[in-house]
């Protein structure tokens, strides 16, 4: 347990709250540590001291911990790979270059399997998604109390919020999902024109030769296709979020047992180890699924269907 004073529920909630920086609206009542109440006179950009404050901030807030880890891990990946890339040579590869080339080869063959169009951005995007998500998910294997406890010591605030797994933040996963969605629309329009995009939304899946029948089919098609389109980024983001959030939750639940005596503590240690081993699979699998689905969606965006050529 992180602190004796915390109840199990409080402990879990603490672990599930992001370090949030955002705008509190004017008139919001802030409770400080001693129980005093301050009423804010102006809109204030500040660190949230509790989950309620973070909620009150609404959309005008940013999760500092999620962004920090996501950017830090992204940089770790890119700096490492760019260093290798800088020294990459066509001679006999050794050590690190060998490992990096294995990853690149794996991504390249996966992309070539699923994406048969000309677009130089898809493979680097797949590589970024895969390695970045693997790294972000891997933060789940760090015991849940280590980094938050270290940060609490460092800042002197025992209630300092600090989530270390960016992919357990729906903002992060949905942010990536919607970016993929935006790129899908962008490439669809770039490849088929705006009219092609509209046709894709309105002339599928039902189609009839007679225009007066089509008029009645278009709204149905549009409703169906809209759902099909919008479900893609949401399922993409929520699948990753759900898997990682569930995994993190189980680690936290196991961690609550550490304070409950020697026997339960040892049992929790075994459980944590077992779950971590299993979780390695989830970490790699979810990153792979996200990457493959992105490749599939991009291929769909580039696909000019034969049916379209009759119109």
């Amino acid at each position: 347990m992180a602190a004796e004073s915390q109840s199990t529920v409080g402990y879990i909630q603490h672990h599930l709250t992001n370090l949030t920086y955002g705008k509190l609206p004017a008139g919001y009542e802030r409770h400080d540590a001693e129980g005093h109440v301050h009423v804010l006179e102006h809109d204030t950009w500040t660190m949230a001291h509790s989950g309620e404050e973070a909620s009150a901030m609404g959309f005008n807030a940013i999760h500092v911990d999620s962004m920090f880890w996501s950017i830090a891990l992204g940089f770790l990946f890119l700096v490492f790979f760019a260093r290798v890339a800088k020294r990459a040579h066509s001679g006999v590869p050794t050590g690190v270059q060998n490992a990096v080339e294995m990853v690149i080869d794996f991504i390249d063959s996966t992309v070539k399997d699923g994406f048969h169009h000309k677009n130089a951005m898809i493979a680097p995007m797949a590589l970024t998604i895969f390695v970045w998500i693997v790294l972000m998910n891997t933060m789940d294997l760090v015991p849940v109390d280590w980094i938050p406890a270290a940060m609490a010591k460092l800042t002197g605030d025992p209630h300092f919020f600090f989530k270390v797994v960016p992919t357990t933040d729906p903002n992060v996963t949905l942010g990536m999902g919607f970016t993929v969605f935006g790129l899908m629309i962008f490439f669809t329009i770039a490849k088929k024109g705006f009219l092609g995009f509209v046709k894709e939304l309105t002339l599928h899946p039902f189609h009839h030769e007679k225009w007066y029948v089509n008029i009645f089919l278009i709204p149905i098609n549009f409703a169906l296709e809209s759902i099909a389109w919008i479900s893609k980024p949401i399922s993409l983001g929520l699948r990753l979020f759900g898997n990682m959030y569930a995994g993190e939750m189980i680690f936290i639940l196991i961690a609550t047992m550490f304070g409950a005596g020697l026997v339960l503590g040892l049992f929790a240690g075994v459980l944590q180890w077992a779950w971590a081993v299993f979780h390695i699979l989830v970490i790699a699998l979810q990153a792979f699924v996200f990457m493959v689905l992105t490749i599939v969606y991009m291929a769909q965006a580039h696909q000019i269907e034969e049916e379209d050529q009759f119109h």
Partner: protein
Amino acid sequence: MNINLTLIGQSITFLFFVWFCHAFVWKAIRGAMEEREKQIADGLDAADRAGRDLELAQEKAGKQLREAKAEAASIIDAANKRANQIVEEAKDAARQEGDRLKAAAQAEVEQEMNRAKEALRSKVATLALAGAEKVLEASIDESAHKDMLDKLAASL
């Protein structure tokens, strides 16, 4: 679990990372890998070509060897022929020379014989007369018997 600006922050970060990966990671590493693939393909190609070249060279060497052998054989043949010819020629020359020497010797012998005969012929009359004088113990008129003696000499 609030949806907030993090969503957009992550979006921008994602796009930046994709761009960075494309510009500074993917191209360089894939470039090196493709170059290596090409080098290996070229190497294998070169090895294939070298193998074919070797075969050709061996064939050529064998052909040249056979030619050289044939030439050597023909040269030896010619030399043998020539040697035989020279021997024959030498034999012929020797024979001819021998014949010539023999002929010359015979001619000389004949000449000597003739000369001796002439000498004998010129002396036979005198010798005959002297002999006859001795036999007859008388002087014989040389002029009276000259005709007979000349005839005798001529018949020798």
